[in-house]
């Protein structure tokens, strides 16, 4: 019905109008993708300075994977690999903690007295509204105030702060879809609360937990502002802070170009696969 209506409406529009509309979208996309295209193009040349073309080569990809430049025998900045390592580790730990904490919190909030629910939902929304810089500075002041030295642990804690609210928000809708009696039924049949959670509730909440987990991973990997203020000065860097420090020094480590080209490609392929899947599922249901 809707589809037919949409089509009839489109037919009312002139061809010229449609061309302009499409051209506008594609133009925006071209501008949006131009810098990324630039990164990918210049990942195939070996020049140290981003933007200088010195002939096609896969040299930077080779450098990235072997750790040193075969031609000049110069090592690739080891801090880059440490930054990649810490980005991934911090994201994984923060996402696991956020998912557990957030799922329990969502269950608690759902069954709470309305007043408590309101208060907690409000508190939960603060880290989402707060910009990075304020989350970062407020935590910086807390760690200074309590005399906690900043480093790996404080960065993970800070990432849990801004990831967990999204887990709560992705699990809550699953709870309202769930039959409220099955948990009580499990308890009546002799399950402990923990067993009831694991065997009865978890399977229902799983999709929300997964999307919360993935969202946490991406937020953590992408974060710059909060990490910047909570990482301390012991040399701990994630990719974001590494890039920032690099850019301020003036030169960008050339191997970042192939690294992000590969990341972009991976995500593109993942999205295409996901899209094909949902398409297939849609076709099945119709």
């Amino acid at each position, binding site marked *: 019905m809707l589809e037919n209506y949409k089509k009839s409406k489109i037919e009312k529009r002139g061809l010229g109008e449609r061309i302009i509309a499409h051209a506008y979208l594609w133009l925006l996309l071209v501008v949006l993708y131009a810098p990324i295209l630039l990164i990918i193009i210049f990942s195939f040349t070996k020049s140290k300075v981003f933007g200088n073309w010195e002939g096609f080569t896969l040299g930077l990809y080779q450098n990235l994977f072997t750790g040193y430049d075969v031609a000049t025998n110069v090592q690739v900045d080891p801090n880059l690999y440490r930054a990649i390592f810490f980005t991934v580790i911090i994201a994984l730990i923060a996402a696991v903690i956020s998912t557990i904490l*957030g799922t329990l919190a969502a269950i608690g*909030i759902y069954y709470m007295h309305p007043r408590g629910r309101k208060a907690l939902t409000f508190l939960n929304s603060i880290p989402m509204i707060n*910009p990075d810089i304020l989350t970062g500075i*407020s935590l910086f002041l807390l760690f200074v105030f309590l005399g906690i030295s900043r480093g790996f642990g404080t960065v993970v804690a800070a990432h849990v702060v801004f990831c967990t609210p999204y887990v709560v928000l992705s699990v809550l809708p699953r709870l309202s879809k769930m039959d409220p009696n099955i948990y009580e039924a499990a308890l009546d049949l002799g399950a402990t609360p923990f067993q009831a959670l694991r065997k009865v509730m978890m399977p229902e909440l799983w999709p929300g937990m997964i999307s919360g987990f993935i969202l946490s991973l991406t937020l953590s990997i992408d974060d710059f*502002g909060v990490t910047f203020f909570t990482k301390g000065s012991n040399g701990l860097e994630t990719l974001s802070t590494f*890039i920032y420090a690099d850019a301020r020094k003036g030169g960008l480590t050339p191997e970042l170009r192939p690294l992000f080209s590969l990341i972009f490609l991976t995500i593109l392929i993942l*999205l295409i696969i996901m899209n094909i899947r949902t398409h297939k599922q849609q076709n099945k249901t119709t």
Partner: protein
Amino acid sequence: MKSSKLRMVLQSRSTWAWPYALFLVCLVLLPLILIGVYAFTDPEGHFTIQNFVSFFTKSEAINTFIYSIAIALITTIICLLLGYPAAYIMALAEFKTPQVMAMLFILPMWINFLLRTIATVELFHMFGLPLGEGALLFGMVYDFLPFMIYPIYNTLQKMDMNLIEAAHDLGANRMQVFTKVTLPLSLSGIYSGIVMVFMPTVSTFAIAELLTHNKVTLFGSLIQRSFGEGGIGMWNYGAALSLIMLIIIGLTSFFGGDKEDINR
């Protein structure tokens, strides 16, 4: 007796939120209160309003503040003007796969935004454009445009098409349909888009330095500097600036959220 009480506490599932409630109080509420405490004290811990006095009397600080708000407003307006038509076309025009289109607009956000910003600077170099206000605005719009498109696209997509049809049947022309039906119905999306673009742009640091090679300082960078290079004595001043930003963010989300509720 005691164990049955414990059992009751464990069975009432609202207790499962307690760890998170404690976590929020310690790592969200307390830190925000600390900003206020530091803002109203001097390095020795005595009460003072000197931090605010120096903000309002230093012309550099107050000018940077006003400038940052202006840049954030202009960025938000440009994002709205560019983003609304894009969201409108995606939601209402015939596309076999509007989701794919929406996805294409979000995909760039997966590349680290600092690296994208640096690539934008390169783009300016290539075309021989100077780095300055123009580059700053371009970079900010570039970084935050998806935040404007997505919420507007979402509300437009959920809109009841029958309303448009009804308006047409009742004799409204296309302009009237847009101003009287489509636009009012998409207001909630516009509000959340504005909030989602304005808040990060007004608080951004790092982007401005990279885009203008330190030619332009924004309020966020001013705050960052008082915590970074300023030394311990500057922290209280930085906290005062942070508190001012916190108030701006609070006001923005309050008014943004408020209007959204009325709309529902």
